[in-house]
C-alpha cells in the first residue's frame, strides 16, 4: 500500500461504485455513500457524476457549505445541468440564500422548461424571497404540469397563505390534509392559515383533533399555543409551547416562548425568535399595532419636541437619527418632518424592513441584530431611538452602552420600556413575562443609564399600547450624555 505498489482500479469499479453509491443515497443512507464517492471522484471521467451525488448526500446530511461546494464542482463541468442547478437551488434555500436559489432554479427552468419540479422549486425560492405573486404563478404552473404532486400543492397553499389569500390557501390546504391522511405538518399549516385569517377557534379545533388522533409534532403544539394566546389563555398555551420546544430542540423561537410561558428567565430573546415573530407577521404588524392603540412613535415625537424646542418650532432640524428595531418604520413616519440628517433603520426581520423601505423615509435599512449594529463605527448621531425594543432584551447594559458610543455628545437617547415593580428591590432588574416580553424595574433602567454615562432628561410613565386585557403600562425615557 505504498506509492510504489498502488492497487490499480479494475475496469468495472467505476460502474459498481456509482451504482452502489447512488442506491445508498436513494435509500436515504447518504453517509454510507461518502467513502465510495471519494473513490469515484478519482476515477477518470467520473468526477462530475461523483460531485453531483456527493452534493446530494451532503445536502441530506445537512452539511450545506460542503454540499454547495460539491454542486459547484458538478456545475463547473456543465453549467446548464438542470439536475445540478436544482440541487444547488435546494441547498441554497436550506442555507437561507433565497436569491441564489432563485438564480439556480430560474436557470434550471430555462434549461428544462418541461420540468415541473424545476418550476415548483423556483416557486418555492420566490416564496422564501417573499415574492408571493410570482411564486404563486410558478407553483401554479408546476401544479398544472403535475397536478398530483403533494409537495407542490402544499407549497402553493403556503404561498396563498403568506400572500394573505387565506380562502384560497384554506381550500388547497384542506385538500392536502385529506390527501395525506392528516399529515401533522399540513394540519399545522392549515391551522396556521385559519389563525392568520382570524379564525382562532377553527385553528384550535383542527389542532386538537389532530393531537387526539395521536399525531405529535412541534408545529401542531406551537400553532395551538399561538391560537390559545389569541384568547389570552396563557396557562393553557404554556404546556403546548413546552411540548413544541421539546420536539424541536434546536428552535430558538420555541425555546424562548416555552421559557417565557413557564416563567423561566433568559437574558434576551433569541434572534431567531424575533426574526420568526416579525417575519411571520410583517404585513399585518403595523395594522395590528395601530389597532392596538400603539402610541410609542407619537410619544417619542412629543418627547423630542419637549427636549429640543428649536426643532419643534421648525427653526432647527434633527441631525443623523439611528432607529434601532425600526420595524415597519413608524418612528420614521412620526419624525419625518423634523429630519435634517440621514435616518438609518436597523431590524432583524427582512419582512419588517421591506415595509419600512416602502415608506421611502430611511436613508439606509440594515438587517442586523442590535448588538451587532452598535458594534459598528457610527458617525455621531443626534438621536438614537429604541421603540418597543427593550421588551426583547433582559439585560440592558450592553445596548445602553452601545447607544452612548453611537451618540453625539449632545445627542438624545429615546426609548420605551415595559416596567414592573420587583418584590425584592435588590433582586434581578428584569423579568421575562409569560407573553414572551421582558419588563424592567425602574431602578434597573436608571442604573443602566447612569453606568453608561447618561443623565435623564425626562421620565414619563405612559400606557404604551392597549391589549385585550387592558393597557400595557411602561415608561418613555429621554436621556443625554452626562457633561453636556
Amino acid at each position: 500500500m505504498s506509492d510504489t505498489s498502488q492497487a490499480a482500479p479494475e475496469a468495472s469499479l467505476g460502474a459498481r461504485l456509482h451504482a452502489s453509491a447512488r442506491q445508498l443515497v436513494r435509500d436515504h443512507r447518504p453517509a454510507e455513500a461518502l467513502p465510495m464517492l471519494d473513490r469515484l471522484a478519482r476515477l477518470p471521467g467520473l468526477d462530475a457524476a461523483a460531485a453531483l451525488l456527493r452534493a446530494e448526500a451532503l445536502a441530506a446530511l445537512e452539511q450545506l457549505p460542503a454540499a454547495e461546494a460539491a454542486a459547484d464542482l458538478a456545475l463547473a463541468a456543465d453549467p446548464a445541468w438542470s439536475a445540478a442547478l436544482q440541487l444547488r437551488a435546494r441547498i441554497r434555500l436550506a442555507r437561507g440564500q433565497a436569491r441564489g436559489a432563485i438564480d439556480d432554479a430560474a436557470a434550471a427552468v430555462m434549461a428544462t422548461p418541461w420540468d415541473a419540479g424545476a418550476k415548483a422549486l423556483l416557486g418555492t425560492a420566490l416564496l422564501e424571497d417573499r415574492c408571493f405573486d410570482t411564486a404563486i404563478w410558478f407553483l401554479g404552473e408546476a401544479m398544472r404540469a403535475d397536478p398530483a404532486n403533494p409537495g407542490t400543492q402544499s407549497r402553493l397553499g403556503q404561498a396563498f397563505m403568506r400572500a394573505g389569500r387565506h380562502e384560497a390557501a384554506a381550500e388547497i390546504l384542506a385538500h392536502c390534509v385529506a390527501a395525506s391522511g392528516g399529515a401533522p405538518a399540513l394540519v399545522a399549516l392549515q391551522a396556521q392559515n385559519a389563525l392568520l385569517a382570524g379564525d382562532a377557534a377553527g385553528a384550535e379545533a383542527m389542532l386538537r383533533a389532530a393531537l387526539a388522533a395521536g399525531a405529535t409534532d412541534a408545529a401542531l403544539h406551537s400553532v395551538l399555543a399561538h391560537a390559545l394566546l389569541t384568547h389570552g389563555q396563557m396557562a393553557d398555551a404554556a404546556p403546548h409551547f413546552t411540548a413544541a420546544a421539546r420536539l424541536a430542540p434546536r428552535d430558538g423561537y420555541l425555546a424562548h416562548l416555552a421559557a417565557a410561558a413557564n416563567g423561566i428567565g433568559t437574558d434576551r430573546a433569541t434572534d431567531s425568535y424575533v426574526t420568526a415573530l416579525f417575519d411571520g407577521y410583517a404585513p399585518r404588524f403595523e395594522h395590528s399595532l395601530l389597532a392596538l392603540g400603539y402610541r410609542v412613535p407619537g410619544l417619542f415625537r412629543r418627547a423630542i419636541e419637549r427636549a429640543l424646542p428649536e426643532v419643534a418650532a421648525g427653526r432647527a432640524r434633527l441631525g443623523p437619527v439611528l432607529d434601532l428595531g425600526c420595524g415597519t418604520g413608524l418612528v420614521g413616519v412620526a419624525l419625518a418632518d423634523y429630519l435634517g440628517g440621514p435616518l438609518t433603520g436597523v431590524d432583524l426581520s427582512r419582512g419588517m424592513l421591506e415595509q419600512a423601505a416602502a415608506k421611502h423615509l430611511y436613508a439606509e435599512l440594515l438587517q442586523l441584530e442590535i448588538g451587532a449594529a452598535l458594534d459598528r463605527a457610527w458617525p455621531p448621531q443626534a438621536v438614537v431611538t429604541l421603540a418597543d425594543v427593550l421588551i426583547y432584551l433582559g439585560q440592558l447594559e450592553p445596548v445602553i452602552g452601545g447607544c452612548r458610543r453611537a451618540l453625539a455628545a449632545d445627542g438624545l437617547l429615546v426609548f420605551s420600556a415595559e416596567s414592573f415593580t420587583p418584590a425584592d428591590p435588590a433582586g434581578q432588574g428584569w423579568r421575562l413575562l409569560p407573553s414572551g416580553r421582558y419588563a424592567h424595574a425602574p431602578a434597573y433602567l436608571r442604573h443602566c443609564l447612569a453606568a453608561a454615562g447618561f443623565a435623564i432628561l425626562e421620565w414619563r410613565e405612559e400606557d404604551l399600547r392597549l391589549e385585550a386585557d387592558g393597557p400595557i403600562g411602561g415608561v418613555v425615557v429621554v436621556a443625554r450624555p452626562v457633561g453636556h
Partner: protein
Amino acid sequence: MTAEAYRAGLEALGAGQPARAVPLLTEALGDPERGGYAALNLGMALQALGRLAAAVPPLQQAMAALPDHAEPPFRLGTIAGLRNDAAAAAALFRSSLARDPAHVPALAALAALAEEAGDTGEARALLARAQDCDPAEPELALALARLDLGQGEAAAAAGGAGAVLARRPAHAAAARLLAEALQAELGSEAALERVAAGAAADPFAAGWPLAAAWLLEAAGQPEAALAELRLAAQLAPGQADVLAALGHALAGLDRHVEAEAILRQAIAARPGDLDLRNRLATVLWKGNRLSAMLEVLEAAVADFGPHATLLLNQALALNAIGEQEAGLAAAEAAIPGGGIAALVNRIAVLPYHPVAGTALRLREAAEAIGAALRPVPPLVRGRRPQGGALRLGLLSGGLGQHPVGWLTLAGLEALPEAGFTLVAYSLKPRTDPLARRFQARCAQWHEVGALDDAAIAARIAADGIDILLELGGYGEGGRPFVLQHRPAPLQVKWVGAQFASLGLAACDGMLTDRWETPPGAEAFYTEQLLRLPDGYVCYLPPPYAPPVGPLPALAGAGVTFGCFNNLAKLTAPVLAAWAAILAALPEACLILRTHALGEAATRDRTARRLAAAGLPPDRVALEGGLPHRRLIEAYGGIDIALDPFPYTGGLTVCEALWMGVPVVAMAGDSFCARHALSHLSNLGLGDWVAGDHAGYVAQAIARARDIPALAALRQGLRARMAQSPLTDAPRFGRNLAGLLRQAWIAVPEA
C-alpha cells in the same frame, strides 16, 4: 469406476466446487489404491462446505490410511480448535509435524495455540521455524506482528502489519492489526488520520477502508464504519473476510435483509467461522424466522460442538417457537461456563415453562444473577433533601410504539409537570408518534444505547435523577445492570419484561398492584412491592382502533376463539386445554396470529405440534403477524380471546378488551402469570380468570355457549374499559405521583 470417480472428484475440488466433489469422493472411498486420498479429499471438501462433523470420519480414515501424510492430522487439529478443544488440537498439530517437520500451517497453528496460552516465547520460536521453511509467507509475518502488539510493541506491530498489507492490499486481518497497532501507538484520532493519509495515497486498496472501519467501530461510530466496509467490499469483491466484517456491521445496525444475504455469502466463503453462524442466527431471530434460525444453530452445534453461545441462541429460539422444555434444557446446558449471559438467558426462558416457571423458581434464578455480579461502588448514597420537582429517569429501549409505550405513556403524561421532571435514557432511537409523545413529555432526552452500563449510570447520576424507572428488565435490549452502579437514590422496576423479580440488590422497588402481587407475594421478590391502588399500568388505546364490530358468532357459524400472543406462550398444557375446548364445541374454531407464523416452516412445525396435542387442523387457522393497525382490526373476527399460561397476555389482553373481545385466562403465581388477572379485574371481569386448567376449559366452554351474553358484553366493553381505572390516565397519574413521592421520602437522606 471408483478411479474415475476419484479423478472427477479431484477436478471438482480443484474447480472450487466441493459440493459436487462430495458424492464422487464418497464413491471413491472403496478404491483399494486411492481410498486413503479419497478420504482425505472428501474430508477437505466437507470442511470447505462447513460440514465439520461430517468431515471428521473421513479425515480419521485418511489419517490411518496415510501414515506418512501430515495433512489429515492437521485438518483434524483445525476442527478440534474450532470446537474449543485446544489440547486435542495441539496433539494433532504435533502429530502432523511428526509426519512432516516442515508443515508450515501446522507450525503456525501451534504458534497460535501457544500465543493463546500465553507462551509467547514458544510462539515466536515456532513462527521462526516456519519462516525458515517459507520465508515469503505473509501470514507468518502477520502472526509475529500480532505477538509484537501483544507484548506492547505497537510500532513494530504496525510496521509488520503494514508490510503485509503492502504485499496483499486487501488482507483484512492485516488491516485490522494495523488499525489496532496504530491506535495503541497514536490514539484513535491520529490513527484515523494516518489511515486516511494512506487511503489518499493508495485509494483503491481495500486495506485502508478496512482499517478505518475497525477504528471507527472502536470509536463508537458504527454507521461510519459500515460506510468504509461497503467501500472495501466494492474494492475487494467476494473476499471472505471483507464479507464477514460487512455482515457483522450490517447485523449490528439491524439491516436484517442485507445482513442475511451478506452473512450467508460470508459463511459459504468461511464455513469454519462460528461467529458468523451465531450472527446469522441473531439476524434471523430479529426477523422472526425461528425455524431458519434453528436450522442454522443445529448445523452449527453439529459442526462446532455445544458452544455456550450457540446453546444460548438455541434456547431462545426453541422457547420462542413454543418448545419450552427443549428451550430450558438448552439454557441449563449453557450455564456451566456460560457466565452471567447464560444466567440471564435462563431467566428469559424460564417464565414460559409450564412446570418450572413458578414465582419461587424465578426468584431463585434472578438471585443467581444478582449473586454472580461483581460489586460496583455506588455513584450516589441517599437522597437529596426534599424540595422542588422530583427528577424521574426512564431507562428503556421501548419509549415508543412498544408494550412499554402503550402501558406507561398515558400515566407518565398525567404526572404533574410541576412535580415531576422526566428525563429519558433511551436505549433505542424511535421516531414513531408514541415516541414523539414521550419526547414532548420529557424535559431532557438522551440516546444512550451505544454507551456501556457504567457510562449510562454516570450520565444518570450526573443529571441528579431522584428516581430511576427501569423499563427493560431481562428482555431483549434491556440494561438492568445499570442499576448496579446505583446512579439514583431510588431505583424501581416497572413495565418492560416485568415478569418476575430482578433479583438485584440495587433494585429497590417494583411497581405492582394487589392482583399481580397479593399479600404474601413478598416472598417471591427481592424488591419492595410498591402497590398502586388500581392496576400497575395505564393502557393507552391506539387512536386508530376502529369501532367495535358485531359479535362474529351472531352470524351463526359457531364461536371463533383467538389468541394473538407469541408462540413462546403456547405451552403443552395450553394446547391440551384448547383441544378440550374445541372438542366440546364442534362448531367452534381458533385463530392463532403472531409474527413467527409468517414463516412457512414454523407454521408447519406448529401445525404438527397442534395436531399432536389433539387440536383439529381444519378448525385452527395459523396466521402471520400484521402491522399494528390491522392486527387491532383483526379482533373484529374474534368472539373470545383465549389467553395462554403460565405467561399470560399483557398488552394483548388490553388490545382484545379495547376491541370488545373478552378474555378467558388462568392465573398462576408469578408476576407474568397474573397480568391478565390484573387487567380483567380492573374492568370488573375478574370472574373470567380461572385458577386451574379444568376451570379454564369449563369457563371457555360456558362463555362460548351463551351467545346473547357475549353479544351484550361486547357491545358495552369499550365504554366499560374507557371508564375503568385501566385507561383513566389522570387517576393513574395521581396515584403514581403519590406512590413515587412516598417511596422517595422513605429513602434515607444522603
